């Protein structure tokens, strides 16, 4: 018996030691999450959102699956977009209403989270809208023609004046309609080709001081120009390159090489590369997409447009040198510097006579018009990096119909701009250089990596199958949460110590046994919380703390009974067994009533659940520890005090033992 008892007790003690130290250490630290307890929102901060799905438009039998679809999309958005590791997204049905409950532990920017969850990103491709809202009426047409005729007369008058020897500055004051320059002798300052391409092109062939003989048409009207000065702008470098990318390199889709192989390959290429064969080598070997056509030609670029390592390698070497291998995120590059120049800037003055187009009289409804291509035709979106500039971008791959549409759009808009709209505002307005029929496109706004990730994830997760409405939110700041956590742990420890002191002082040795059982109880419960993954909320901690008190209740019942039985002069052993047997129905009944309450509290949901779960686990565990463990320990200890029973430590001692008790015992 003793052996069996100790066999039961000892592993228990060892386990208890381990568990207890573990849990105790956890308890002592304010930062519980890292140690693996599932903390509720009120203890670690975070948000609890309840959405109502608007299922009116959906037929009854399809509603549940549609709402499940919403749940999946929301979960993807939350996991990917917000990076919440342990989100809880679940659906519930209340009457005929479908709801989605989203719990986001640790999320600080709830506003952002709500945006992410509830809003579907609308991605649209639009093309330039040059068609006026309606055709001009005959009268308007005449008005337009008259206006432009007058402009032509005016500009010719100005040219005539200049020919007659009128000073350019005087002519500016007299004729120019450009309000921003007319009071400054028409001076536009130094310009490059980006803003005034027509004027820049004229200035390139003119000399300083030269005035244009004819007017130069631009989008805004007729210009008479005078080149004032020229200067060097930024240095530009042109280069071609061969890229060998390897597994793990950025944007390396079909990696053929490991990193070491790539280095070997590029080193070999370096040995054979000459200025003459560079283009061919690039066509044959470069892993850069499109290199087979381009021969690796990059054209002119300014400082800051390329990734740093690439730029550094090529910037200051003489033209016609081949440098490399250069390592960037994209792989190894072999670079042939093909040219270097200063961009020229010209200081130009102008006389502007404005003209009108049909859109000035009847403006186009929108600058951009719909093309019918949108995020719906998207197969997938992913973050990538521009091979040369290193800018973060989002690559799109369209499905079949999207590929066709995109091909048509790019075909009819070569040389024009196409705008990519996200949620109604343009995020990228690239110029179409050539038709794209491969069905892939790139959005290159000025994204940060995380923004690009967010966008691609939002695009991938797709639209919500059913619109949702936020009907309830709860949000707790992390500071308040950890404050509550520390306070409740503090309170729990104080309560625990108070109970321990009380038990030992009042019941003495059995009290100590009960405390041992209580410690084991706490360790076991906490371990269970961890194992089952109970989310500890503030009310859950309260439930646990309350259950500590209740756990002792069983022992109190037993010990009171023991005292009574001992008073009836039973032997220690006999009294003990009697006490356990007789207290059991009370312990069972009282715990069952608590469990009945708990069952309905769990059903009630909300904060009630956390409380009820910890309390019922506590009650169940306490039935085990307070009875089985205490009994085992008591049976184990009893023989130490071998005078069959009554010794100083017991609540009420009866030293004069009658012989009849001996009989009872045997």
């Amino acid at each position, binding site marked *: 018996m003793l052996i069996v008892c100790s066999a039961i007790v000892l592993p228990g003690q060892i386990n208890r030691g381990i568990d207890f130290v573990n849990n105790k250490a956890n308890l002592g630290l304010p930062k519980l999450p890292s140690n693996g307890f599932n903390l509720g929102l009120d203890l670690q901060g975070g948000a609890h959102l309840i959405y109502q799905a608007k299922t009116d438009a959906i037929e009854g039998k399809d509603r549940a699956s549609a709402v499940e679809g919403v749940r999946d999309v929301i979960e993807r958005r939350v996991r990917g977009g917000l990076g919440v590791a342990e989100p809880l997204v679940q659906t519930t049905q209340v009457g005929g209403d479908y709801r989605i409950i989203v719990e986001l532990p640790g999320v600080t920017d709830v506003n952002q989270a709500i945006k992410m969850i509830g809003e579907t990103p609308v991605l649209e491709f639009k093309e330039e809208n040059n068609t006026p809202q309606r055709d001009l009426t005959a009268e308007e047409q005449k008005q337009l023609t008259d206006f432009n005729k007058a402009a032509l007369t005016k500009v010719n008058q100005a040219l005539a004046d200049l020919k007659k020897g009128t000073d350019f500055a005087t002519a500016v004051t007299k004729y120019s309609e450009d309000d921003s320059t007319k009071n400054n002798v028409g001076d536009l300052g130094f310009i490059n080709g980006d803003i005034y391409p027509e004027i820049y092109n004229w200035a390139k062939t003119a000399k300083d001081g030269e005035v244009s003989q004819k007017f130069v048409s631009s989008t805004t009207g007729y210009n008479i120009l005078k080149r004032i000065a020229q200067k060097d702008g930024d240095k530009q470098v042109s280069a071609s390159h061969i890229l060998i990318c390897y597994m793990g390199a950025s944007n390396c889709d079909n990696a053929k090489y490991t990193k070491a192989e790539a280095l070997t390959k590029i080193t070999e290429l370096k040995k054979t590369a000459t200025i003459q064969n560079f283009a061919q080598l690039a066509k044959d070997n470069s892993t850069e997409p499109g290199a087979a056509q381009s021969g690796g030609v990059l054209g002119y670029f300014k400082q800051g447009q390329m990734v740093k390592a690439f730029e550094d390698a090529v910037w200051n070497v003489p033209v016609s040198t081949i440098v490399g291998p250069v390592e960037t995120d994209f792989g190894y590059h072999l670079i042939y510097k093909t040219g270097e120049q200063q961009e020229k800037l010209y200081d130009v003055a102008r006389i502007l006579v404005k003209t009108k187009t049909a859109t000035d009289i009847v403006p186009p409804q929108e600058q951009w018009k719909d093309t019918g291509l949108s995020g719906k035709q998207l197969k997938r979106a992913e973050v990538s990096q521009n091979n040369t500039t290193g800018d973060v971008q989002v690559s799109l791959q369209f499905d079949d119909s999207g590929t066709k549409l995109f091909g048509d759009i790019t075909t009819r808009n070569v040389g024009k701009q196409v705008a990519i709209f996200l949620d109604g505002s343009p995020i990228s307005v690239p110029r179409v250089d050539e038709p794209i029929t491969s069905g892939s496109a790139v959005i290159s706004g000025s994204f940060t990596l995380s923004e690009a990730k967010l966008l691609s994830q939002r695009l991938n997760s797709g639209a919500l199958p059913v619109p949702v409405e936020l009907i309830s939110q709860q949000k707790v*700041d992390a500071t308040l949460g950890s404050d509550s956590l520390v306070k409740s742990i503090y309170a729990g420890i104080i309560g625990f110590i108070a109970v321990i002191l009380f038990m030992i002082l009042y019941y003495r040795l059995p009290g100590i046994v009960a405390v041992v059982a209580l410690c084991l109880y706490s360790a076991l419960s906490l371990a269970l919380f961890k194992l089952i993954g109970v989310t500890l909320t503030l009310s859950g901690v309260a439930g646990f703390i309350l259950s500590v008190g209740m756990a002792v*209740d069983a022992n109190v019942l037993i010990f009171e009974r023991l005292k009574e039985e001992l008073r009836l002069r039973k032997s220690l052993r006999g009294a003990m067994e009697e006490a356990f047997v007789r207290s059991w129905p009370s312990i069972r009944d009282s715990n069952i009533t608590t469990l009945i309450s708990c069952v309905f509290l769990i059903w*009630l949901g909300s904060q009630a659940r956390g409380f009820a779960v910890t309390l019922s686990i506590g009650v169940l565990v306490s039935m085990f520890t307070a009875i089985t463990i205490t009994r085992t320990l008591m049976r184990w200890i009893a023989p130490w005090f071998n005078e069959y029973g009554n010794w100083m430590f017991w609540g009420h001692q009866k030293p004069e033992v009658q012989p009849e008790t001996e009989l009872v015992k045997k």
Partner: protein
Amino acid sequence: MTIPFIKYSRFWLFLSAAVAIVSIVFLVIWGLKPGIDFTGGSLLEVTFEKNRPALDKVEGTFSELGLKNTIIQKTGDTSLIVRTNFLTEDQHQLVLRQLRSNFATDNTMREDRFETIGSSVSTQLRTRALWAIILVNLGIILYVAYAFRQVSRPVASWKYGLLAIIALIHDVLLVMGVFALLGHYFGVEVDIAFVVALLTVLGYSVNDTIVVYDRVRENLLRHNNENFGDTVNAGLNQTLMRSINTTMKTTLPLFALFFFGGMTIHYFVLALIIGIISGAYSSIFIASPLLVYVEKWQRKNA
């Protein structure tokens, strides 16, 4: 030493009835103040780094935004709790922006807590809470009747159950009465946590009564030739230390939570403490004397 509880049972029953009646009066006059869990609405807790603005100014900010029925309370040294209508997320952000621009230009304001509950959720919580209370009561009555099925003399087993429920009603009334009082004078609201506390008290109160009745039952089976009142009194005395000790040990951690556990669960814990103490009291001073009365009454009518 035996304490003659049953002898003075008239006094205790009178006292208990008085407590219950006063509680009912409080409930009728003031009622419980339902929190946003049950009415729908928003609760916003903000903390200012320094210079907490005056309440009427904050209220002004809310009425500027067209939000009526705003209740603003101070909490802690630097925080405010605002209760107002249901806010959509846009309105919520607007409120924060407005508060920051009005009061936090050279100060920082942190949003500690925000809860907003729409009417559909609060309706659901309300009906669920009601059902939970009804079902818990039903469950407990059934269980008590089942547990006492073997003891039908001298008092039928279902009567034990009924008396346990009477004791329980007293406890619940007391807790609700105290919260009606708190609600009237301190604006304490009744939320889901309160219902949780109430249901826990239900379980606990019956638990206590069961322990006492169990002992009475055991005594009845052992020596059934005694006077019924004496048997009950003996049972009470035998379980007295247990009742006191258990209540002490359960409330000790709760008191720790009450004093050190932070504001959020302050009233939740208070409801538990009142209910648990009352649960122990009612088992001794209501449930047991009533048992004796029932037995007397039965004999008279037999």
